[in-house]
């Protein structure tokens, strides 16, 4: 079964009606500045509903796409030039966050920054410490360089166990700390994070801590605070951010990080310097100051997330307290079984996250329409009632 109940397939005529225009050779350009959602739906018609990679289902939006489109003018010559926009984006990010460009590192997604930081700070003698489960990127690199890995199990509420992490951090090269956490979706309040960082700094002063705030813009819990200000002054702390989540640019590969200039230099020294592309940088420049769009996306996600949480709870299934654009749910069966059932319904949900692969599934939050549709399918796969008991 494919998505069809709520998405119209648009032909060229409808694209034009939605704001597209005809260019060379009579081809119809996507109406990127108006009617974007219709164009998106047309392009994605017939594809499964993608709830497996924590993407923003609406993409970067018209402002970024229009800026990118301008790079295709003059026969696209700007796309043929090696780009010089990296420093421009570092400037813009520094301006937005009130720091210096020297505090900012740009990467090919925050993925590249996670990898480079692992290369910079772990060795066979000084390992990597992280929660279990957590996002795997740093672990993959630590294995490449032969750095030992200590995975610290979380608490019963699937929060990271900060005391145990701090104890494991003694002598480590790098602690990877995702807040909110992936895949658990749980948040660690600012007070606890600051205390944790102080403990690590005190007990293991040479250890670096990489705080991955990929989902920061989706957090609604008022106890949350970014640790960017701390990263600017504490040479052991790095905060990574991404344009792949709330900014909707996963396909364009731009991430960024904040740290002390000396720390930035160490990470950059490990980094392939030409990983970012002109379209992604252009989109990022258009979006970094667009706080209104960010707020809209947060509200959209919060509403669809609450709908999905409520749906599971009404059926006695308990997701963790999600502060992200995904849920981590005990579906009472192997993730693989649930995933394959959903796939047959035209819906893709998250991969295995050991050691929870026998019970939990990570489900990304799509649009509210997608979640209404998906939950009907979940009901069939899980053998629960589609409508909640009154």
């Amino acid at each position, binding site marked *: 079964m494919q998505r069809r109940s709520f998405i119209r397939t648009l032909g060229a005529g409808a694209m034009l009606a939605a704001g597209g225009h005809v260019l060379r050779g009579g081809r119809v350009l996507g109406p990127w500045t108006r009617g974007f959602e219709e164009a998106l739906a047309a392009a994605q018609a017939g594809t499964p509903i993608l709830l497996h990679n924590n*993407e923003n289902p609406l993409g970067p939006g018209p402002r970024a796409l229009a800026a990118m489109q301008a790079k295709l003018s003059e*026969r696209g010559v700007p796309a043929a030039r090696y780009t*010089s926009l990296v420093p421009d984006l570092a400037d813009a990010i520094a301006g937005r966050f009130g720091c210096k460009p020297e505090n900012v590192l740009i990467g*090919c997604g925050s993925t590249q920054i996670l990898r480079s930081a692992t290369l910079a700070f772990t060795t066979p003698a000084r390992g990597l410490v992280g929660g279990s489960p957590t996002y795997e990127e740093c672990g993959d690199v630590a294995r490449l360089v032969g750095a030992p890995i200590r995975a610290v199990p979380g608490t019963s509420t699937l929060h990271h166990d900060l005391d145990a992490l701090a104890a494991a951090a003694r002598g480590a090269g790098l602690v990877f700390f995702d807040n909110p956490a992936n895949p658990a979706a749980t948040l660690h309040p600012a007070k606890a994070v600051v205390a944790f960082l102080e403990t690590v700094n005190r007990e293991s002063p040479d250890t670096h801590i990489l705080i991955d705030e990929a989902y920061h813009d989706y957090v609604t819990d008022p106890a949350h605070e970014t640790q960017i200000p701390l990263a600017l002054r504490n040479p052991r702390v790095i905060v990574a951010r991404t344009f792949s989540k709330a900014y909707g*640019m996963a396909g364009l590969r731009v991430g960024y990080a904040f740290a002390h200039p000396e720390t930035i230099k160490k990470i950059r020294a490990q980094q392939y310097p030409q990983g970012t592309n002109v379209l992604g940088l252009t989109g990022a420049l258009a979006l970094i100051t667009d706080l209104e769009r960010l707020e809209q996306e947060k509200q959209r996600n919060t509403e669809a997330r609450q709908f999905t949480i409520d749906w599971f709870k009404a059926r006695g299934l308990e997701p963790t307290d999600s502060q992200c654009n995904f849920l981590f749910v005990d579906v009472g069966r192997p993730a693989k079984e649930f995933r394959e059932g959903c796939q047959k319904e035209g819906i893709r949900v998250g991969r295995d996250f050991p050691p929870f692969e026998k019970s939990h599934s990570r489900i990304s939050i799509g649009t509210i329409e997608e979640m209404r549709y998906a939950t009907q399918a979940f009901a069939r796969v899980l053998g629960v009632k589609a409508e909640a008991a009154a």
Partner: protein
Amino acid sequence: MPVSRRMFLGTQTNGAPRAASIAARGHEALAAEYGDGAAQAAAARRADAIRLNSNENPLGPSPAALEAIEGAFAFAGRYPMNARPAMADLRALLAKQHGLEVANVALGAGSGEILHSAVRAFTSGSRGLVAGVPTFESPVRVARAQNVPVAEVPVDAAGRLDLPKMIGASKGAGLVFVCNPNNPTGAVHPADAIRDLVSRIGAASPDSVILIDEAYHEYVTDPDYATAVPLIARHPNVIVSRTMSKLHGMAGLRLGYGLGGMKAIESLARWTMPYNANAPAVAAAVASVQDEAQIERERARNTEVRRFTTAFFRSAGFDITDSQANFVWVNLGRPAKAFRDACAEQGILVGRDFPPFEKTHCRISIGTMDEMKRAVAVFRSVLNLTSSSVSRQ
């Protein structure tokens, strides 16, 4: 306030002050750190600059590629493996085009990532890198940063890699880097010489990986040249890198690929970033690598302008290699920097220093015919040439 010719060398120019001008010092420092040099970065911001410094295609991507890029905008929010076409579609297409399996293909954010990752994957403190000098510097730079021993083998008088000496230096090496055609000299090695190099290194140092960088492959016109891809079948330690940044006109989009034996590609790919190829670049590459007519048109265009540029320097009495790429390598008998700075003052950007030839040689990329005619006029004035055939501006 009028902007003087000199001003752009030291500060930013054109248009309204950028919002980030408060951070201009930081910007310049960053620009320098990213390797542009502040003067180059500032000059490059001039709208009317003629950019002959980075071996780019001056005409941009093909019309089919542009259309594909825009088509991929709908997938900008999706990771590249979820876009249409996806990274896997491009890998499958490249495998088919080259008569290989998908597992023989690795994608990179530019072929630079393939080169960078190859050094990481195949060299160590005890297994070094062998490269020509001058050649594309990236592998040597990465190796030095990792304290990997580097054997640099000078090119011959014609700018060709000294293949016998490179074979000699390969014993026990982790990686041998062969740039063919060679950047910056433009010299190309015939297919039989590369075949011979691969089999001799294979015999003398069977664990060494041979990375053959064919970034300029599509621009070669010498009939004795051929790609090294067919060698992969018998020599699984061969990796051939290609890029979308040169003839395909997508330097800003960051996409390249490596083709090689499955085991070598697997080792290499562990060092590349996951989802490194952005969705628009993947879509553009799928369109562009299949566009034979466009490839032929762009090759012919470059060949004509390259011939014009080569003839100018030859007739002016300068020694110039027989370039097979989209740049020329000229012995100007003066430091590249002096020439570069003088050209930049007149809006022409030419190539960086390539030690140990920085006191004599300059690399000049091939622009459009119109750009090269304007550039040649500037070269005449900078080089103090007199001529009645080209008017001064």
